[in-house]
Each structure stands twice: as C-alpha cells, then as structure tokens.
C-alpha cells in the first residue's frame, strides 16, 4: 500500500468538503465530550457511594436540653441493639468543626453560624441498612432527649437518584448527538465519494482492490473522528480545570464530593478516542457498502 498516496487522498478529501468536515468534527466532539462527562459522573457516583453508604446510615440528633442520663441511656441502647453494627458520638464542638471544614469556601455562612447551633448526634451504622424503621421506632422523635432520627440512606438515595438522572440524561444526549454525528459522517462520505467519482471509477477499471479504493474514505472519517475525540478530551480537561477544580473546590476538599482526578480522565481519554475513530470509520465503511459503488 502506498502510504503517501492514501494520505494525500485523505488530506484532499478533508479539505474539499471543509464545511461538512467541520460539522462532522464538531458533532463528534460534542457527542464524545458528553459521553466522557457521563462516564466521569458514573465514576464519581460510585466513588461517592463508597464514601457515604459505608459511613453513616442513621443519624440520631439529640435535643438541646438533653441530660447526661438520657445521653448515656441512648448510648447503652445502641450498644445492646442487635441491629447496630457500629456507632460514633459527635459532640456540638465536633459538629461545628466538621461544618467549618465543609463550608470553608463560604466564610460568611460559617461566621453567621453560632458555634452551638449544630446539634450533637449519634451516627449509627446498621447491620442491615434497610432496617432503619426499627431504629426510628426505638427512638421516637421528641422523647427521651432525642430530637430527630434521620435516615441518611434515604437522603443519599435521593441524592444518588438525582446524580444517576444527571448521568443518564448526559448519556442520552450523547447518544442522540452520536446519531447526528453518524448521519453527518455518512453524508460527508457520500459527498466525498461523489466528488471523487472520476478517480474511483478509474481505480475500479484499472483493477485497484476494493480496500485501496475505500481506505482513503474510511481514513478520512476516522481522522475526523480522531480530531473530534481530541476536542472532546480537551473539553473535559478544561471543564476539570476551569469548573470542577474551582467552583467545587470546597466540597471536594471537605470530602463531600470526590475530586475528578487526572487518572479518571487518563482512563476515559483513550476510550473516547477509540470510540471516535471506531464509530466514524465504521459509519464510513457501512456507507460505502450501502450507498456507494466503488
């Protein structure tokens, strides 16, 4: 195979349909960028699940006027309960410290919150997280120094269903964009084949192999797919540096949101690149088979 010949054909092809090529690259880039975002969110969700679900399942907030007896009664009850796997006590001071840390990016909020505004609590890990109602029954709200029992799992479920929804929506848009990208690629290749019909007709007549005739078109699409993928990767990197790392710096530092680390992007980038090149090349190949006589 003459590499020079094929490459110069590819370059000519891309230049000849510049507007179509640009459209093809941009839709591919958007689609792949969203796909990458979806993958990053998915990774983030599983990281967050690991952080949260293991730690806390039920919080028992104590009333302001709780007595020492009430507190130790609750503790004994927790210690003796077969439903409880583990628990920790968080005093008002500790609660305030954690609060300060979580909202270190919002100093006004911290300043306006008095140190004793946050309740003391028991953070309880259950043997079986589904058994939350049993605990809630044992510690009725508003009695025996208990202010409120909260199922953090319920809150987390809602949080994660929100995040899952965001991930699914991102991937759905990515799929629609990918469809648009595939159609554009198909269209561009048909146009390219039409533009070069003189060459390909002659190639056919002098006995050039099918591969020799098709390869420039397939590579043309694959190169566009690759450029699209590179743009998408650049987009992900910019999003990390300009948005995630700045705007979400506080919650990340506080350990509420796992950071988007370079490792995740390094893992996703080759997937995006392969998807871009593979899908574009495949779309071109199918188009040539179906619509173009070579």
């Amino acid at each position, binding site marked *: 195979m003459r590499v020079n010949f094929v490459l110069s054909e590819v370059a000519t092809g891309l230049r000849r349909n510049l507007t179509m090529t640009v459209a093809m690259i941009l839709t591919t880039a958007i689609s792949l960028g969203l796909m990458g975002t979806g993958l990053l969110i998915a990774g983030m969700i599983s990281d967050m699940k690991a952080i949260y679900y293991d730690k806390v399942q039920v919080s028992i907030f104590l009333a302001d006027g709780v007595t020492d007896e009430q507190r130790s009664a609750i503790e004994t009850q927790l210690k003796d309960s077969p439903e409880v796997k583990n628990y920790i006590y968080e005093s008002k001071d500790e609660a305030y410290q954690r609060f300060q840390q979580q909202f270190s990016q919002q100093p006004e909020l911290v300043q306006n919150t008095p140190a004793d505004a946050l309740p003391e609590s028991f953070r309880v890990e259950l043997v079986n997280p589904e058994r939350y109602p049993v605990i809630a029954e044992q510690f009725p709200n508003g009695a025996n120094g208990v202010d409120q029992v909260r199922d953090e799992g319920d809150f987390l479920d809602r949080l994660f269903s929100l995040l899952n929804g965001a991930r699914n929506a991102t991937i759905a848009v990515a799929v629609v964009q990918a469809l648009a990208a595939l159609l554009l690629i198909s269209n561009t290749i048909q146009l390219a084949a039409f533009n070069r019909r003189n060459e390909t007709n002659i190639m056919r007549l*002098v006995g050039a*192999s099918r591969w020799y005739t098709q390869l420039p078109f397939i590579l043309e699409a694959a190169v566009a797919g690759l450029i699209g993928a590179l743009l998408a990767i650049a987009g992900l990197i910019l999003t990390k540096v300009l948005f995630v790392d700045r705007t979400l710096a506080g919650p990340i530092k506080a350990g509420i949101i796992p950071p988007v680390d370079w490792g995740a992007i390094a893992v996703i980038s080759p997937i995006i690149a392969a998807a871009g090149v593979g899908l574009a090349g495949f779309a071109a190949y199918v188009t040539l088979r179906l619509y173009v006589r070579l």
Partner: protein
Amino acid sequence: MIELQHVTKLYPASGRPALDDVSTEIDKGEFVFLIGSSGSGKSTFLRLLLKEDTPTTGNVVVNGKTLNTMSKWQVPKLRRTMGCVFQDFRLLRDRTVAQNVAFALEVINKPTRTIKRVVPEVLEMVGLEGKAHRLPNELSGGEQQRVAIARAFVNRPLVLLADEPTGNLDPETSEGIMLLLERINRTGTTVIMATHDYHIVDSMRRRVIELNGGQITRDQSRGVYGVGR
C-alpha cells in the same frame, strides 16, 4: 481467450433484453469491431467482459475464467488484465499526463521504480514524449485520447476494450488513434472496439461483429461496416 456462451442480459427497467442469447468467441490477438446502432447491446457486451455486470443467463469466459462464478475479490485481478478506453477519455483533470498514466499503476501497487521506468516508455509509444507535464485541458482531443490509451496500455493488458474511442474526434485524428490501436494489437493484445465510424471499419478490414436488438446479426472476418451500403 474470450467466450460468450448463450449470454442473455435483461435490465429490470426494460422489457427487451440488452443481449439476447449471444454466443461468440474471440481469440488472443484478434482485432474486433463491434458495430450496431445505439441500444443494440455493444456497451452491455463490453460491460459483461469487465464484470461490471453479470449476465442474466449464460456464461462469459475471459482468459479461461468463468466470470459468473468469480468472487468479488477476484474482479480487480481480472480488470488488471484489461485496459479500457472511452469516447470521453476520462482523464483526471488535476493531474498531468504522466500522473494520469502513473495513477493506473499506483493504485494497483506497482513499485515506484517500475512506474518511473514504464510511464515515459508508454508515453513515447503513444507519441506524447514531450508532453508528460501538461494538464489534460492543455491538450487536443486526439492527444487526450492518446493519454487515455497510454493509461489503458501501461500495464500491458491482454485485452484492450475501446468504447467509441474516436467518437469525439475528427477523421484525421481518428486515423492516428486507429494506427495506435493497431500498433497495440500487433504486440499481441486483443482489441475489441465498439464504434459507429464506418470509414474506419471499412478501411481497416478486420473482423466485424454486428449487434442488432441484442442479437448478433453478422460476424464476418475482414468485414465492412454495412453490407450493400
């Protein structure tokens, strides 16, 4: 060399067969004129030899190979043994004369060394040695057809198919082209030429196959264009 055995070709859009039970044989080194009015089946005849089309029934055999059973992957190999020339030259307008000829070799993966050697040779043979670096639109029609012939012949095909190669040329230029085709024929290449040009057919006195409504109505060695014309 080339054999058609009871070949019928029906195109779906038309009720009348383009070729209707045609059988003939062409030997190696022959020079054959294919004549007949438009729509008589000349082009279909040539297309079947190139396996651009498959017969509806019957067999086409080229160089001992039955084209009907030939797989898609073998078709390029078949076409490398055949050269094609057309009425409209079909040159690439953004490539020079030499590049047009070299193109035919590049795309079948001939080594650069070979291309550099044989392209000037064939250009000299067709009488274009000084014009290798011209673009097609800087040449006359006759010269453009010589480029097309050079391209068809540069890979030394066993068969040269010419579909009205002089259809766009004046009689004098046509004569030059015919001399060239004759010269190619003398190298042992079979030449099959579809034409309407009775001057040429009458003056060359070669084998004439006349098609009419898809059937062979005359097959005559050393024939003329029209009997009793």
